[in-house]
């Protein structure tokens, strides 16, 4: 028997005991790997489970809004500039020129799924029955974009005519800031639903007027802070509710942009002229000056029509935090900055810093009583640099939450009270995220320009639903339409818009007057500024 298995016996065939041993010698190695793998998995899972159990964060998605069934909602678009075009696209109609551009781009760069995303966008069952733009070229383009076989839209020379039309159920307002409130107020009084871009208003007093107009009208009113649709915000809110961060003392949000487009140096159309632009209507309540192309196309560069960094970008970051904390209007605000990069005749600063104080805002704490109150919201912006490292941070005693577009990362603080034992037991490593949430972990994303990347990082471009990439603005408009159709709640209504506008205006007043501006929450009033000062800052001559 032994001889039969002798290796040296080359004439013998068949499998002997020694052959079996040699043939299966490696199997124990496989067993060792399986054993180690299962041990490692169990270790990781146990660690993860105990952390997740401790944190108990509910990573849920925003509830879906109601159905888009029934008769089409008849909309009017007021202002078909850069943003107006995006809003109309989000509602279902892409301009011909953009479609051609995206087709070309998709051919050259297979990662560019913008056209595909648009084609897959849900049909919101709307009809644009009216368009209104003061520049003929844009009005014509808007007409061309929203015309369909069964819908021939009308161009209105003024928004008042549009609001008087019985064929309009609601309006989307994407005008310069100084027109937001006058149009919204008239629309509310005419019983037309309103979707208005941020900043909700341009002036302090019109903010109150719009608030009352909406409150007494019964219309569905939505401010264009589309990041409220971002999937990660619901999860971030739960992180705060479960007091994962402990007492948050400082919130930081920043804007870093360094491109012409990011500094509002928008394209001036070659056909722009007093013949093609209704200049008087553009000026509205702004100081009366002769025709000026640059003011028309690059209105964000002047306080007279825009709200600077405060209204354009601070409002987004403020509202992102307000969406999480619901902290409302600050007790006080200061602002400072200057024109340090774009010395091109603009009068709004291109570096802007804001500090908002919330000394009485209450949140949970893991420390002794009395340490749960108060935080500062700091906003810091420059249009002369696009360093990507200044993400939104919610800095708590126990942990720091980093908000980047659709992702959330939480790091435990090395000096945390709540996680002290877990850090000591090496269950939590402050260097490694305690919790991270990334709904796009399975996908690949392509964002093209620097400004687009800035917006994507703020969750302003797209979010995810069921693992699919969706335009946030599309969802925000859908929410508004569902409010109109089904009576469901909107996420950025008049209360949120009022808080956003007043907070932004407080920083503008602080910047212009060079002092700290205070808010009386009970009286709902800015207290240490005279009516004259407010009017002076808002270009109101009496």
């Amino acid at each position, binding site marked *: 028997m032994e001889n039969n298995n002798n290796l040296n016996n080359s004439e013998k065939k068949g499998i002997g005991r020694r052959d079996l041993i040699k*043939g299966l*010698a490696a199997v124990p*190695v496989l067993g060792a790997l399986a054993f180690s793998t299962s041990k490692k998995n169990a270790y990781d899972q146990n660690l993860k489970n105990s952390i997740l159990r401790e944190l108990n964060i509910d990573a849920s998605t925003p509830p879906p809004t109601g159905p888009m069934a029934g008769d089409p909602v008849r909309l009017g678009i007021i202002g078909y500039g850069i943003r107006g075009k995006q809003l109309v696209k989000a509602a279902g109609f892409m301009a011909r020129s953009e479609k051609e551009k995206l087709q070309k781009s998709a051919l050259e760069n297979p990662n560019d799924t913008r056209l595909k995303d648009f084609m897959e966008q849900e049909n919101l069952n709307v009809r644009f029955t009216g368009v209104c733009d003061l520049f003929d070229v844009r009005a014509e383009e808007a007409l061309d974009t929203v015309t369909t076989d069964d819908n021939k839209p009308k161009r209105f020379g003024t928004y008042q005519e549009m609001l008087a039309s019985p064929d309009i159920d609601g309006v989307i307002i994407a005008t310069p800031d100084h027109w937001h409130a006058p149009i919204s107020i008239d629309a509310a009084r005419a019983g037309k639903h309103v979707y208005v871009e941020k900043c909700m208003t341009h002036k302090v007093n019109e903010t109150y007027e719009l608030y009352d107009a909406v409150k007494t009208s019964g219309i569905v009113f939505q401010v264009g802070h589309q990041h409220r649709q971002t999937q990660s915000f619901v999860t971030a809110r739960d992180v705060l509710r479960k007091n994962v961060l402990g007492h948050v003392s400082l919130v930081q949000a920043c804007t870093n942009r360094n491109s012409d487009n990011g500094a509002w140096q928008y394209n001036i159309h070659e056909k722009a002229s007093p013949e093609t632009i209704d200049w008087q209507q553009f000026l509205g309540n702004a100081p009366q000056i002769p025709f000026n192309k640059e003011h028309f196309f690059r209105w964000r560069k002047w306080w007279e029509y825009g709200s600077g960094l405060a209204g354009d970008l601070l409002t987004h970051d403020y509202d992102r935090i307000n969406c999480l904390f619901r902290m409302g209007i600050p007790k006080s605000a200061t602002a400072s900055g200057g024109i340090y990069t774009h010395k091109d005749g603009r009068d709004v600063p291109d570096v802007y810093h804001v500090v908002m104080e919330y000394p009485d805002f209450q949140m949970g704490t893991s420390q002794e009583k009395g340490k749960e109150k108060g935080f500062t919201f700091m906003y810091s912006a420059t249009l002369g640099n696009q360093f990507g490292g200044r993400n939104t941070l919610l800095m708590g005693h126990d942990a720091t939450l980093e908000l980047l577009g659709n992702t959330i990362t939480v790091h435990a603080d090395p000096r945390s009270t709540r996680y002290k034992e877990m850090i000591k037991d090496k269950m939590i490593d402050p260097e490694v995220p305690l919790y991270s949430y990334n709904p796009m972990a*399975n996908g690949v994303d392509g964002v093209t320009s620097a400004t687009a990347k800035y917006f994507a990082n703020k969750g302003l471009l797209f979010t995810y639903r069921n693992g699919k990439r969706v335009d946030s603005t599309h969802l925000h408009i859908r929410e508004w339409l569902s409010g109109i159709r089904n009576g469901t709640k909107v996420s950025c209504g008049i209360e949120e818009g009022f808080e956003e506008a007043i907070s932004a205006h407080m920083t503008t007043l602080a910047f212009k007057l060079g002092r700290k501006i205070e808010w009386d929450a009970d009286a709902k009033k800015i207290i240490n500024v005279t009516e004259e000062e407010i009017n002076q800052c808002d270009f109101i001559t009496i």
Partner: protein
Amino acid sequence: MKTELKKAATLNYTNGQVTALVILRMLIGWHLLYEGVVKLYNPSWSAGPFLMDSKGIFSQFFFDLASNPAVLNVVDFLNIWGLIAIGLGLILGLFNKVAAIAGAILLSLYYLSHPPFIGLKYALPSEGSYLIVNKNLIEIFALIVLAVFPTGLQIGLDRLIALSRGKSVEPVENEELEKEAA
């Protein structure tokens, strides 16, 4: 009989050579198998981000793979099960030569998608400092060594397969092989 003998023929190693080669085979097998298993058990894993981080002359090819979701699914599937199959083959000594060559090809794809050449920078961090030669390249050539010096017939299931087919697993002298070839 003669041809069968040649087919199953194996090189004449010393015990030390067999031991060293088999240990190398198992180490690489362990590495690849574990890589495959980790990916299999991570539902959110995809080759997408890695492929999108490709640099160098072949990067377009890897971008193309990543940009089509259907193709990316196939790539992910082949990656996971390729790693598992190659890892099992190397550890068990099953189809030793095929497993070693397939492993070298798979690793070559990783290497070519992220070549450590001058001027190429990657978003995904690497754990060491590399210039032209990195650990992928070394593992590729270790697998080529294992393909040229197979050991499945000495230690591994290949031995049992050969024997069950009635082939000889005895070492053949090099001169004998050369004679056969001539």
